[in-house]
């Protein structure tokens, strides 16, 4: 398990930690790519950028009520 923030390249799924209100819906919808820290705030994993999981990532981004998750174009 690696965190997207550790990598040089921008992750495919980007979190805005200021907008996020931390109710964890995204981690429920997309547990392969997002886990919650000890205070209930999401950690975006490297796995969230896996092309095979792109539909899951898109669903999580769409479901976020705070518009805190954005799917980036790959590249």
């Amino acid at each position, binding site marked *: 398990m690696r965190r997207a923030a550790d990598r040089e390249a921008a992750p495919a799924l980007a979190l805005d*930690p200021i907008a996020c209100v931390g109710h964890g819906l995204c981690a429920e919808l997309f547990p392969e790519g997002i886990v919650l*820290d*000890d205070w209930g705030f999401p950690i975006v994993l490297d796995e969230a950028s896996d092309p095979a999981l792109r539909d899951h990532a898109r669903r999580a981004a769409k479901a976020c009520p705070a518009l805190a998750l954005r799917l980036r174009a790959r590249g």
Partner: protein
Amino acid sequence: MTTRLLSAAVPHGTTDLAHHRAVHGALPVLGRGDADALVDVLTAAGLRGRGGAGFPAARKLAAVAGSRRPFVVVNGTEGEPASSKDRLLLGRQPHLVLDGAVTAARVVGAGEVVVVAPAATHDAVARAIDDRAARDEPAIRLVAAAEGYVAGEETAVLAHVEGRPPVPRLAPPRPAERGLDGRPTLVQNVETLAHLALIVRHGADWFRAVGTPERPGTTLVSVSGAVARRGVHEVPVGVPVDDVLRLAGGPGEPVRALLVGGYFGAWIDGAARPALTDRDLRPHGASVGAGVVIALGASACPVRTVARLASWMSGQSAGQCGSCVNGLAAIAGVLVRLADGDGTPDDLRLLHRWTAMVDGRGACAHPTGTVRMIASAARLFAVDLEDHAHHGRCAACAGTGRAAATAHGRAGAVAA
């Protein structure tokens, strides 16, 4: 010692325009057409930002040059409690800082320079601006800096200048793309611009004649903690840290450890005696940063010191990001419990878990910088932490108050 930035200093006062020009010479007048040339000179000089992150000045200037109606912002907020170099420059060498800002503004095509400076320096800076008024220079606006550690982060500075609360926003877009009023903005630290003012006069080779290949030039160092006199000194990058302590009158007792780089820096064993270079400091997780050196005397309890630092930094969170707000508070909480002898070995486990968990999680670098400093302390003071976790307060703690009671007190947690 080599003095450059401070070579026109006058005892206890502000260097006026006449004396400034007599010592440093006239400021070469550059314009928009000189952008490439200045970028080349700054690249050759290897000037890095002196606000802490060490970003190459040439790259940022190149990014803003040629954009439509940009701004230049001088970041003199200096929210770091152990640092006083920027207020020293603003209060005593304002013309050097303004020379650098005006040159940057002319070259990138900015019509206005905004100087963000602590209130205590305003008389000196305002007088300097008046004295230059007759010259053909971009307009210079003076804004009182906001208080607080995070207020110095560049997007927080821009928010403050725009009249909003001084808190960071998510970047990108960086200020070089979208800054003041949405326009490209060059935000540069006070000391960075003062060096730039000398580089345009004397060139890259002159700049590189002292310092290290990686970080050429001199640096201002703010020394505090267990030394005879806290203060600011100009030294070539690369001098032994011992020389820096000697300039501050020497340590009054054996030095247990040094916090290098400030509250975002790293703790280094006092016996390691590194040189003040990134190459020597990197293995310890530190960098020259904004030039802060804090000495911890052998009689102080490091656990208590780190608990107070962590509590203060937790209190400085801008309160916007869940992991910064909750994570720093939780980390400070375990450290205070450990310092007060109320902690358990499980608290130690949580300390390690949480410093790793918070790393890289905020919209700005506040939580990351803070947990890296704390993680360096957890490595260097591992035995002391174990001791507190298993046996309660140590001998050095005897006779001192509880960390919980003083945690939110004065900023100078180490110097106190």
